């Protein structure tokens, strides 16, 4: 075999061996223990900070909201869909004897017209979508520029929750 072909094969052998070597070195240690992924990834994801508590947690303290909401149209909504992530609030709210929570633990109270129409905005593409196949119902839509925009008596701007109870609309 000519000298240069031998060298070429040698060079390729070096590259391949180097690659295999790197492959064993760089392969994450916990890889493949359970499946084709890093087993540590599960642990790492468990350590991630949580933000949401879930409605069941909320109603432990806010019993009246539960009874309100259960019979209304918003029965299926999670509290935190409107109030925002509330895990910290749910964990620490009862630590304050006088019931006065610091600002950092207070939750958002979505009262403005903008916030209800996130779900109720008139939207041509959504009309056909059946939200709940059993009741064959869908999220009702309103045109926020027309639906009771101002109070006819004094022309003050109206917000949705003046007429609709958000927990039992």
């Amino acid at each position: 075999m000519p000298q240069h072909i031998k060298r070429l094969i040698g060079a390729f052998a070096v590259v391949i061996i180097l690659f295999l070597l790197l492959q064993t070195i760089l392969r994450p240690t916990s890889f493949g223990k359970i499946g084709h992924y890093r087993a540590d990834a599960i642990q790492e994801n468990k350590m991630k900070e949580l933000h949401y508590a879930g409605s069941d947690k909320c109603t432990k303290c806010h019993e009246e909201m539960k009874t309100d909401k259960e019979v209304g149209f918003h029965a299926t909504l999670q509290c935190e869909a409107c109030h925002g992530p509330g895990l910290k609030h749910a964990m620490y709210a009862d630590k304050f004897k006088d019931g006065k929570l610091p600002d950092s633990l207070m939750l958002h109270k979505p009262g403005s017209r903008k916030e209800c129409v996130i779900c109720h905005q008139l939207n041509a593409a959504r009309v056909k979508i059946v939200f709940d196949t059993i009741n064959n119902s869908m999220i009702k839509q309103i045109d926020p520029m027309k639906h009771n925009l101002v109070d006819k008596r004094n022309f003050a701007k109206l917000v949705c929750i003046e007429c609709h109870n958000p927990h039992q609309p």
Partner: protein
Amino acid sequence: MTQHIQHLYEVLSKVDGYVYPNEIELNWSILIVLYPYITGLVAGAFILASLERIFKLHVLRPTYGIALLTALSFMLVATMPLVSHLGKPLRAYEIMVTPHLSSAMAIFGFVYLWYLMVVLLLEIWFDYRRDMIIWAGETTGLKRFLYRALSLWSTDISPKAVALDNKLGYIVTIIGVPSAFLLHGYVGFIFGSIKANPWWSTVLMPVIFLFSAIVSGISLVMLVYIVITRIRKLKIDMPCLDTIASYLFYILLIDFVLEGLDQIHRIYIAEESFDVLHNLVFGRLFFTLFIMQGLIGTVIPLLTLGTLQFYKPKIQIRKAIYTIISPLILIGIFFMRWNVVIGGQLFSKSFYGYTSFKIGLIGTEGYLMAAFWLIVPFIILSFLLWLFPPWKKKEDDHEIQVG
């Protein structure tokens, strides 16, 4: 919470109709457009070089070396748009150390390596080894060291050794053509196999990608050749250019017909996704699809090159035509990739709505980043042309010794 809602309002203003939450923002941006574009240029340039070698088309000889080096310079950059698109680019190597057969992307790493190491580098090495040894004797300093090292310090330039190089190089070329087809067919496969997306999911995708790749690669080599001869103030080899142009015409024609076939098929079967795609094509994609890809990139080049098949104007005019048409085709193919990658994400998989694509100038996914990855291959190409000038090779016909 309020800033979340602010952000939601901002992004919702880009949306028409109903889209799923994860469709509001496009995740595959211009860098993912570049990736099939650049791999296409590689495969196309290589196939042009192989035409010369396998079918012994000696008229194409002036572009052989240029085509190979162009393929190599773009190949070295092909994965970079993908890597810089990643949120964690430093983890990119993990796809290579923990490959899985069920991941098309993981296997692509190996298709890429095969093509780079076993096809391109080997073919260039066999082609240049003798010249590197000769040039090493004529130069000094770093250049001499580079030639020495790259020829693996070999010294044998006897006719027998050179004949063996040519034979092996020929074999590599023969392996190379299906490999180039595989490389680019694979890129099309990655898109074509996403069955949830009716704009992508077609078995024709690999074939269409392949032919558009050949078209773009040939145009690129044509343009590079014209520019190089102009810089070196040489007379351009018109028979060579004319031959390239006629290949370009035929392959562009095939590409056009294939893409047309795909669309006709889509129109004829008119699946439930048809309405949403119809609106997409005549709405958000109108400019890039009909004007840029269709008119500029396909119809004008087809008509001009087609005319040249019957009627040959003066050399000056032909040269001007080639200089204008090749960039047009390059732009057209770029927008073909754009229409596939971006177009496939503009409509909702619920078929009820559309989102839109905005791209910034700066940032990791902006125009500047994309321009950067398009310029780097040309810098590499200039370096390679300086190190391995094809025009300084001792002229011999390797085919004669093989044949």
